[in-house]
């Protein structure tokens, strides 16, 4: 397995404040990984260290199998959307992207092409000559996302890409990021777990500067092992269901009106379980509102940190 980013036992302090306390993180090439953690958990610090903006106190960092960040080796291959970083407001949109693309090693013509491609992608071609200060917050964020994807980078670090945006803008940004999946390894930090669930295939929980859990999203949320049925009834025939699904654990929460079926072995697929369970529920007149594979990220995260 090849990794886009590996952090090993990384420590970082700001004065007396411990930001990273032996952080370990492995991110496979091609993954879209969500970094989950509360404010101050160390997400931004981890990303900034990976991008060479902050110096780690100790530990090893390996980017694309070439060691720690070195501009000569990594420029254009590793990019970042820094959190809360501002670009000069008087600078023009296209000029800024061309300047940044040139710093990645592109020739002037290549840089102009790359900037125009990105402006088309983020739907800002008509604002190419506008000063950055005249853009709305959402448009500005799209410019910063565009710079992160300039020139086909291999690893893109996005720190809170949707913070401060309205719901429509969030959907736009989410769509943009999803459209780049499979073209690069993408690491996204966010507090909005439902958002990460729709964009990521891997996830890592960070708490107090350490990784407390990481893996594929389907494993973390037990998508292959748990099926949740949201029903419109306070009672379900649990004994009948247990008899119909002898290889599964069955739990019903009357207050949440939620029936949870968990596989003890991997003998049955979710489709098999549905085929055996749904007739029982319908036969007993239990209205089914929603079927969901696995638990959700929010629940898993809260369980993990509690």
């Amino acid at each position, binding site marked *: 397995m090849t990794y886009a980013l590996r952090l090993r036992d990384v420590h970082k302090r700001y004065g007396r404040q411990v930001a990273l306390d032996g952080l370990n993180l492995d991110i496979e090439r091609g993954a879209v990984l969500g970094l989950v953690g509360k404010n101050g958990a160390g997400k931004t610090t981890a990303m*900034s260290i990976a991008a060479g903006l902050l110096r780690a106190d100790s530990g090893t960092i390996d980017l694309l199998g070439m060691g720690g960040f070195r501009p000569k080796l990594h420029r254009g291959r590793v990019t970042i959307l820094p959190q809360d*970083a501002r670009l000069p407001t008087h*600078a023009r949109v296209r000029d800024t992207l061309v300047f940044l693309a040139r710093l990645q090693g592109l020739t002037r013509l290549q840089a102009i092409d790359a900037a125009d491609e990105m402006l088309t992608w983020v739907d800002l071609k008509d604002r190419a000559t506008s000063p950055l200060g005249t853009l709305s917050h959402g448009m500005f964020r799209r410019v910063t996302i565009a710079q992160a994807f300039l020139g086909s980078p291999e690893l893109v670090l996005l720190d809170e890409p949707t913070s401060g945006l309205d719901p429509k803008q969030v959907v736009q940004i989410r769509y943009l990021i999803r459209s780049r999946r499979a073209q690069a390894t993408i690491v996204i930090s966010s507090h909005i777990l439902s958002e990460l669930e729709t964009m990521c295939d891997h996830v890592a929980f960070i708490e107090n500067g350490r990784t407390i859990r990481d893996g594929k999203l389907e494993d973390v949320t037990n998508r292959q092992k748990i099926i949740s049925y949201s029903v419109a009834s306070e009672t379900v025939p649990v004994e009948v269901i247990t008899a119909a699904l002898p290889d599964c654990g069955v739990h019903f929460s009357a207050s949440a009106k939620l029936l949870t079926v968990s596989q003890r072995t991997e003998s049955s697929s979710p489709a098999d379980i549905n085929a055996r369970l749904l007739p029982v529920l319908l036969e007993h007149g239990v209205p089914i509102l929603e079927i969901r594979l696995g638990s959700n990220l929010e629940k898993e995260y809260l369980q993990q940190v509690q």
Partner: protein
Amino acid sequence: MIGFSLRDIGIVARHDVTDSFRSRKAILWVLLYLISALAATFFFTIALREIESEVARLARIGETRQAGVMTQSLWESNSFRRMVEGLVGDRDLAESLIRKPPLVLFFGWLSLTFSPFLIVLLAGDSISSDVASGASRFILTRIDRFSWVTGKLAGQALVLLAAIVASGIGAYGVGMFRLAGFAYGSTAVGLLVACLKAWAYCLPFLGLAVGVSQLSRKVPLTRILSIVLYFSGSILALISDHMAGDGWRRIWELLYILLPQGHRRSLWIDDPQHLVSAGLFFVALCVLYYVSGYIVFARRDA
């Protein structure tokens, strides 16, 4: 080991110049230098006229309509030449001073005296402001820190040159209208040379400001620190010039060499040997100052 790329330095410098003009920072610099030169030269011509009128009154000769006629005659007299030689105590220096039109001398004094302070005042946040706003984060994942800092320094040096040349043009304009017997050609050439000398002299101060601006992301702190270091350096230059001598006092001489003021005198002598040596010292001091700041910047968080 410091790694850098000339290509990246060039791109950053060019962008910094464009950016400075777009942000009106460069326009502010140019206007500040231009207005200062216009005002100072204007008052210089008034003062000159006052002095000439006073001399005319005392000598009971007729007053001239414009300033500069009497000064020009005085300038060309042998007795004045001997007086200057006696004053500066150096024949080469006196010869070189006398050869310059009075306006060029005045502009040279003005630009060498005030330009360094202005550059320290204006460039003390050149790096810290970008680090504070986070703008540097978009750049430092693309190029090494040294290329960025050097590119910024080069960009600021070009803006500074534009500002000094603008002040020279301002002085030329005022002189043209207000001085009698204005020598168009020699004054233009003299002012251009004076501009280049002033620019070279300002480079260490620019290096100092850029060096200090790398020490912290706090913009007011780096601005204040630049000004404090500028004044401390000026005072140290005065003390070391005064204290320099034989024996252990040579240490003051050594210290004086490490300050730009220690090479200022060479700028007044029109001799390639002096000018080249002073120019090289200014470039070396500029590099020394900003690299000292870079050593801290290279090791800290951006």
